[in-house]
């Protein structure tokens, strides 16, 4: 997998909000194609801020971010990168689900048949076909999340960023999402407080606290380390406590 150039490379990144200094402090990180990187850490650790910087929505205070070898220019649009926001309400801004999914491909300037095809494909992946004509605000929480994901996938990004994808999902939808993510081929960054979910989906975990990367290793190594987890206000997930009876195949 490491044969090609990195998808994302971050060097010496620091960031301050006007009224809050050094939310991120000297971050270094390289993500390779096909990796599924989980990002964990307490509320206010800086996860969302980090994602906004990667997308060029916020401007770095110092340091550099490169996507697919090219430096990120704030305010510029990067069709290779898709982001699913923490709150799907922020992301579903069109009056119908179908319009929302078509929004991105249309902005790419694709011809109408190609837009159609993309929408159909994204619907098929997320299982949203029947809900296409619904207004997004009539959907349940789980369906909204799936619609937001469909909207991002329709742009065929090579890197997808998910910010807390399981919050407000019931267990049925959560399982569907796990299933779908494990089958996907894009590179992913996933921030979540749901550690069991990270454990099931990711092949690498980064622990952030107070704007610093505290650990970066295989999920079982980071999250199985009870001392490390507790030092950063987290807990070892239940499934990493040794069990008498196996319960995942």
């Amino acid at each position, binding site marked *: 997998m490491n044969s090609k150039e990195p998808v994302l490379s971050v060097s010496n990144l620091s960031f301050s909000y006007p009224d809050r200094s050094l939310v991120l402090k000297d971050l270094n990180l390289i993500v390779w194609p096909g990796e599924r990187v989980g990002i964990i850490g307490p509320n206010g650790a800086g996860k969302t801020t980090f994602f906004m910087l990667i997308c060029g929505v916020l401007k770095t205070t110092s340091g550099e971010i490169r996507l697919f070898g090219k430096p990120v220019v704030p305010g510029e649009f990067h069709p290779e990168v898709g982001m699913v926001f923490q709150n799907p309400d922020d992301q579903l801004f*069109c*009056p119908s689900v179908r319009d929302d999914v078509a*929004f991105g491909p249309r*902005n790419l300037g694709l011809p109408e048949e190609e837009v159609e095809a993309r929408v159909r494909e994204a619907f098929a992946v997320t299982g949203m076909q029947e809900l296409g004509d619904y207004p997004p605000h009539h959907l349940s929480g789980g369906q909204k999340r799936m619609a937001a994901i469909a909207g991002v996938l329709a742009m065929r990004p090579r890197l997808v960023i998910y910010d807390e994808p399981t919050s407000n999902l019931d267990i049925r939808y959560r399982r569907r999402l796990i299933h779908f993510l494990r089958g996907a081929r894009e590179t992913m960054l996933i921030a979540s407080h749901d550690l069991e979910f990270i454990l099931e989906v990711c092949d690498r975990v980064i622990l952030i606290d107070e704007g610093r990367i505290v650990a970066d290793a295989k999920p079982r190594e980071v999250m199985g380390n009870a001392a490390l987890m507790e030092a950063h206000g987290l807990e070892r997930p239940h499934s990493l406590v040794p069990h008498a009876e196996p319960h995942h195949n």
Partner: protein
Amino acid sequence: MKLQLDEYAYLNTPLHRWDPRYKLISFMVLIFAFSFVHSLYLLPGMVAVSGTLYIVSSLPLSFLLARLRLPGFFLLMMAVLLPFLSGQNALFYLGPLAVKQEGCLDLLLISVKFLCILTLVIILFGTTPFLTNIKAMRALGLSSILADMILFSYRYLYDIGDKLKTMETAMKLRGFLRRNLKSLGTLASLAGTILVRSYEQSDRVYKAMILRGYGQAGGTRSGPRRDEFQAYPRDLAGLLVLVFIAVAFVVAEICLR
């Protein structure tokens, strides 16, 4: 919160099948022709035209009646004032007040025109999904800034309406009763919270939009292209029929003056 303007837009009648762009133009022309009418002799014709269209649309009568409630107040106010204020020739007396002939005729004219136009508006927006109508307006050349604003506001109207309802509930659960003017301050902070939250949400929405290429290749257009609509000769025929009727009303009005 339910507005259910296009509750019956799924029905299948000639009016429902009509290309929304042609329907929009035809109805607007007819509506303006109706508003031009001043002659009492043309009123039965107006009632006949809008009544026929309503029957063709297959919308239930209850749908129309439910929508009359709010504007009904305005009519009521006119009914109370006009017959007494307008004109010289008293028809009869209600105690010391003279009920005047001209006032009554004014009232008749205004109410009939009002009801007929209202019926047309309800057919227009009741037989096409609201969004399709907005898309048709854009296809007809409405400024894309305005069209985008309409689409986004429509989208958030429901959202914010639901928020308001939930917040009012939360206030009630904590003992807030709007009993007198003293609650004005609390209601103002309720309205203020709605504004602040919408403003902050708009910031996040904007970020989500640029991440999906808003304002890139396709300009500010976020909706459909012109080729979403397809017109057939029967769409044009419908347009010609309604425009002909509209012209007939205008000509008749001018002749009768």
